[in-house]
């Protein structure tokens, strides 16, 4: 029997197939279905820093708007005994998810600045989450903000979250650093238990009909796989933290490739949104079949086997190979 179990964030997982943060996890029923379909862990949807900060302000604004403008009505809404603002709703969701399934539940905190929100890491652990994924999702638009300041801010956020958390912490990152490997190493040094590579970035589109910038998130395509594949391959064996691959994980071969370059787990989102939760069964079956046909005993055996430090041509991950690839493209177009 092929052993496809793996270890991630200190958690022993049945398979390397984890459901990444997505709208699916808003419903407890979906989390149950993910477990039934074979997900070895579920990352919950994100609790946003802005949500914590602005939700109460917005509610207060709308509940009190107009109350000072008209003498016949001093208010327009009933005043409930209490509102569950801040993280209470999310913490409750963690509790209910833990009660509903037996697989590990990984919570997700999303923010970009140092602030009180990082302290929720502790409450998340107390609510029963097995681990925490900290999603640092920054889109710096200020031209005067230097890379070193942005990087330092990342590290400070991570340290702050780590100091509050009592459970393992993974950090989900963007690939856009001057030196991704150095950033990974510094985060590793800050005590991060895993790196999740990479965030799917919000990139708006232009709507030509109404000339509006349109916020929309594109689902990933299999081509997106190359970016995590490259960097996991480079980082494997060079840092202590676990490596999780996300973006472009669509079929069994994608999973095998990512494990081979060094991923501890692979995370699926777009493929499940597109094909349904049961797609997980097909992917798991495909991975097992591939491993049996190619006579691999375990995920452990294949993990990192194609990473830069273990593969036959390490330069394939580097610039020299890029030059060759471009030249061969020229050759193709000329012939």
């Amino acid at each position: 029997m092929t052993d496809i179990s793996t270890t991630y964030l200190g958690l022993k997982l049945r398979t390397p197939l984890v459901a990444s943060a997505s709208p699916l996890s808003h419903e407890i029923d979906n989390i149950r279905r993910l477990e039934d379909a074979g997900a070895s862990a579920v990352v919950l949807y994100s609790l946003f820093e802005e949500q914590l900060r602005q939700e109460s302000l917005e509610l207060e604004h709308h509940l009190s708007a107009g109350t000072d403008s008209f003498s016949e009505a001093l208010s327009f809404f009933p005043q409930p005994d209490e509102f569950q603002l801040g993280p209470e709703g999310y913490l409750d969701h963690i509790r209910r998810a833990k009660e509903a399934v037996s697989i590990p539940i990984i919570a997700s905190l999303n923010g970009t600045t140092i602030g009180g929100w990082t302290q929720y890491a502790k409450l998340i652990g107390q609510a029963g989450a097995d681990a925490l994924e900290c999603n640092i999702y920054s889109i710096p638009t200020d031209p005067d903000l230097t890379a070193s300041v942005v990087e330092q801010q990342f590290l400070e956020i991570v340290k702050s979250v780590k100091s509050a958390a009592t459970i393992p912490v993974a950090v989900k990152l963007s690939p856009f650093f001057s030196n991704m490997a150095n950033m990974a190493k510094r985060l590793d040094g800050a005590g991060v238990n895993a790196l999740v590579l990479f965030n799917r970035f919000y990139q708006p589109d232009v709507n030509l009909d109404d000339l509006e910038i349109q916020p929309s998130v594109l689902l990933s395509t299999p081509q997106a796989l190359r970016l995590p594949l490259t960097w996991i391959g480079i980082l494997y064996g060079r840092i202590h933290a676990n490596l999780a691959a996300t973006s472009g994980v669509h079929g069994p071969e994608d999973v095998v490739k990512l494990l081979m370059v060094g991923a501890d787990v692979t995370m699926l989102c777009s493929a499940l949104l597109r094909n349904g939760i049961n797609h997980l069964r097909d992917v798991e079956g495909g991975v097992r079949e591939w491993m049996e046909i190619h006579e691999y005993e375990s995920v452990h055996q294949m993990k990192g086997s194609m990473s830069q430090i273990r593969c036959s041509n390490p330069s394939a991950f580097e610039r020299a190979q890029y030059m060759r690839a471009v030249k061969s493209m020229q050759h193709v177009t000329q012939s």
Partner: protein
Amino acid sequence: MDQALSHLFEVKVPSASTSTIEMPPPFSTSAPDFERDVLGAIYAGHGDELPVSVFPVDGTFPTGTAKWEKRNLALEIPAWDPNVCIQCGKCAMVCPHGVIRIKVYDSKDLNGAPPAFKSTESRDKEWQGLKYTIQVAPEDCTGCGICVEVCPAKNKAETRLKAINMVPQPPLRAQESENWDFFLKIPQLDRRNIKVTSIRQQQIEEPLFEFSGACAGCGETPYLKLMSQLFGDRTVIANATGCSSIYGGNLPTTPWTKNAAGRGPAWSNSLFEDNAEFGLGFRLSIDKQTEFAQELVGRMAGVIGEELVNAILTSPQDDEADIYEQRQRVDLLKEKLDRSDSPDVKQLLAVADLLVKKSVWIVGGDGWAYDIGYGGLDHVLASGRNVNVLVLDTEVYSNTGGQASKSTPRAAVAKFAAGGKPRAKKDLGLIAMSYGNIYVASVAMGAKDEHTLKAFLEAEAYNGPSLIIAYSHCIAHGINMTTAMSNQKAAVDSAEWLLYRYHPDRAAQGENPLILDSRAPTRKVQDYMLMETRFKMLTKSKPDEARRLWREAQDDAVSRFRLYEYLAQRKGNVEPPKANEGGKT
């Protein structure tokens, strides 16, 4: 706190006033005597000092008085860019306060225009060679910004700009006030030359409802303004107590106004619970007086002349041209009657104006129509009389501070429904349709403005009872009032609110009377609910209950859409109901 304390400084209060700014009188000195001296005094808070003798003996107050208030509420007002404008008229249509006006006029009317007055060529083929201006009343605007939100024309070089943009009011106040005064002097285009079925033309009709004290961005007032533009110069309104009676006739001023000929809506508010009956009384009285006038005209053919008598008695008065001609005839009639002093003549002169068709409107909110005045409304609708009922449906008792009504949708939080309304909204339209002879329309201006316009025209033209249920966004929904028209669109896109028209005349022609103007839902009810605090707050106070109610609300929307789809798809009636049973005009 320490920082706040360390930055406190003392303001020395002088013993005598040192300001050199003159306090303007409450109302302009150019206002008529009564407005300036009586209404102005009340406005300034000196009402207690007025003797009883200054008040009108019959309790009738002049209309067109809100314009003297000049509240200067807006920090920002819309400014028009004629080069970007496509002249669609949408900004004027949605303006809740009647401050955005459009005029189409002859170029000679520009003589003496202030230097900053904006004008461009009319783009409408039927108005070729005429000039076009959109002018804002700078001191009456509340700065709600709804006009900018609905403007569909964008500046091609800088897409953040539209054909109308919010700009600071203070620097423009003097200049735009001068422009506004000039604009008012430009004559209105003859109503016979306006195609009322198209918004871009219809919106140049003069609103006879302006500068109300409704909340900035009110969702009710655009409907009233539209009604006043279309029929205001011959309208009589019975208004239920509620928001519309407060902003409609809160002493000392009223936003209901009159045109250059002195014609405008006559308006009154009796009570909350009796408004439908109050309006029916108007109808019966008007019908009786018209009947009497017609009888007298027929009897006096010798004095008036056969030809004029026939023309007066047989005029269909179906459109503006007919109405115009009938008014001409009545003027001629009065002229002829002036030469005689028989008792019949005196009586006819007293009722001659009733020979021109009057449009009776019964107006109120959902608290009146769905709840407290429902019994009376049902009686009046069932009477078959030619009345037009406009329900400004905010789905809550707005004026008294947001109590739930039977119109409140499932899952909405309101007073008396703090845990979310547990039941679905009452379907007032469906109940009215069951009579068969009532014109019923459900509209939402922000979702489909052309549909709203069509429903108003059809309802008024129908010679029997009409009911328009108009989605009205409200401050009691806990929403951004500037973008509220997009909430209306979301309500329709999710089938939370349906657009339809039930026309008994179609049944009389053997067709299905119901036209479902909503398309199948394209988004979830949840998308709409997330835009409004009245729904969203339940997810923060009772998340489990919210989840259950939101699911049920989605089911409500889908099943109601399917029911209407089924009703609208049926073949025409084999035996049509009698339209306008007992109807008279």
